[in-house]
């Protein structure tokens, strides 16, 4: 049983960490694409007309699918002033309340997100910006983003239950340093 949970956590964490590279390459591509677009407009008066539109949607894509990754490294911004003084058990109880909030969000994203995806598919809605992408494709970022953070949340939730019962951690997450030696502090934005 325990090994199933650990295996589940490993898979989910791996998927979410893979998002870092997918989004990283996308942002790199966005930067180059927009720079070319600027040059095309400034020198040739003929920008692409789709680059900015793609980047704007891509920003939503990137932001939404990274929720799970940030969760996996425990960096969602929180006021840890009191939190860090609590025992592991109390922290887990609070994290369970936090999971309930998260699951409400995830449930809405997945359920209504897919509802909109199918609706836009059925009516054949197409983005009027430059990309002319089908709207249902664009809307996939909502249910997928929700699913990614939801799975990570579920994995964390399982550990919280385990901690409350046994008082010990379930996954070996100590020593996970992600941003390398220059790690940005805990839970802040800029």
């Amino acid at each position, binding site marked *: 049983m325990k090994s199933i949970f650990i295996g589940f956590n490993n898979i989910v964490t791996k998927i979410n960490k893979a998002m870092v590279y997918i989004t*990283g390459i996308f942002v790199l591509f966005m930067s180059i694409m*927009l*720079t070319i677009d*600027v040059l095309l407009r400034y020198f040739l008066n003929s920008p692409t007309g789709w680059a900015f539109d793609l980047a704007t949607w891509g920003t*939503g894509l990137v932001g939404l699918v990274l929720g799970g990754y940030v969760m996996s490294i425990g960096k969602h*911004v929180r006021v840890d002033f009191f939190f860090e003084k609590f025992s592991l058990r109390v922290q887990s109880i609070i994290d369970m309340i936090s999971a309930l909030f998260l699951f*409400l969000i995830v449930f809405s994203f997945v359920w209504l997100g897919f509802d909109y995806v199918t609706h836009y598919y059925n009516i054949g809605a197409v983005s009027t910006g430059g990309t002319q992408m089908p709207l249902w494709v664009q809307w996939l970022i909502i249910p997928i983003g929700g699913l990614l953070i939801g799975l990570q949340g579920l994995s964390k939730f399982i550990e919280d239950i385990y901690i409350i019962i046994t008082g010990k951690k379930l996954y070996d997450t100590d020593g996970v340093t992600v941003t390398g030696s*220059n790690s940005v502090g805990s839970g802040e934005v800029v």
Partner: protein
Amino acid sequence: MDIALVGTILFGSLVLFMALGIPVGFTMGGISLILGFVFWDGLPSIDGFVLGSYSKTTQAVLTALPLYIFMAAILMYSDLADDLYEVVYRWFGGVRGGLAAGTTFISAVFAAMVGVVSVSTATLGMVARPSMLKRGYDDKLTLGVIMAGGTLGILIPPSIVMIVFASEAEVSAGALFMGGVIPGIVAATLFMIYAYIVCLLNPEKGPAIPKEERFTWKEKFVSLKSVIIPLAVIIVVLGSIYLGVATPTEAGAVGAVGSLVAAGVRRKLTLPNLKNMFLMTAELLGLIFWILIGAVAYARIVSVTGVGQAFAELITGVDLNRWWILIFMIIFFLIIGMFIDTVAALLITAPFFIPALHAMQFDLVWFGIIFVIACCVGNLSPPFGVSLFIMKGVAEDVSIKTIYSAVWPFVVLLLLSMIIVMIFPQLVTWLPEVMRN
């Protein structure tokens, strides 16, 4: 239901769950879904939540965020700070307190390149601090100038906080960028003067380098070549906006590509570095966007329940000079800023403040700058401040207590800058005005 009661439930539950340590974005999102269900006709409010999340995250103004964050990440991992610091060391090392003032100067230059506080603070903390300590500089002074200088990253353009403010208040990000330049210089100058005076009064806090260790003029000038790349990045970003080549958003892309080139030239574009750049970009983006999702939902609940309007009416209806109201808002924000991240604080207060500011007919660009200075204070003010935690991360040998006590003088100086900008709005409006003609 009585509006005051609804307001108490809305705000009270937010404070309670956040204080417990539930992530800000989940708290705002979860509360909004529950209260939305109750006060906003049940299921349709969930549609509102999902639609709002999609439109906010794909809002054109926010396209700037991944670009500027990526740019910051590139600069962070290309070790530019090392070379810049070498310049300061060679030029100002011989003056008493010179390194402290020079570090502030480099911070300002760094701030003009990146829009996030964490990058300048972390890099300078790693580069400048050991060197200053080795030269016998006072630890508190060293910590203070680095943290204070780093926080200017959001006041001197480009700036992530300004982009988020522009999106909330529907003002031009470009106008905010230009408006922040002079106040940023004012604050940096105050820091430098302070550092110099402290060392003048207490020579042991900032000794000059011994004569025999000083650099020749030739060595000084040679070091300047490392300023070229940072200058080029600044010129590319701010110049392209100013000259109308690129919009502020596009300038982020141009800056990112420029920084990539610079990193390549310096042979810093290795795979491990690229990986670190991606990791940093992903972390900041993911956490900002998941606050945004909660914040947009919360803002809508504040609207639909009428609490926001009631608050705005309460504030504007008070028989007080509108300046007092403005000051109370800032004090309120500063208090929140003591406990929570400034971008999160902005997103929490915006639904209450922006309508009230509109009603009182304050210039939102000018207010935006004052607000960003308040964010700088928020980053420094204990107990919760980005700059403080990063400093603690980089300077592991120092206690958080020492860090807390090191920032106070700079918090005061920032408040002084804020007062100066309030009294002389021209400091914000002058540069955009001049650039127009």
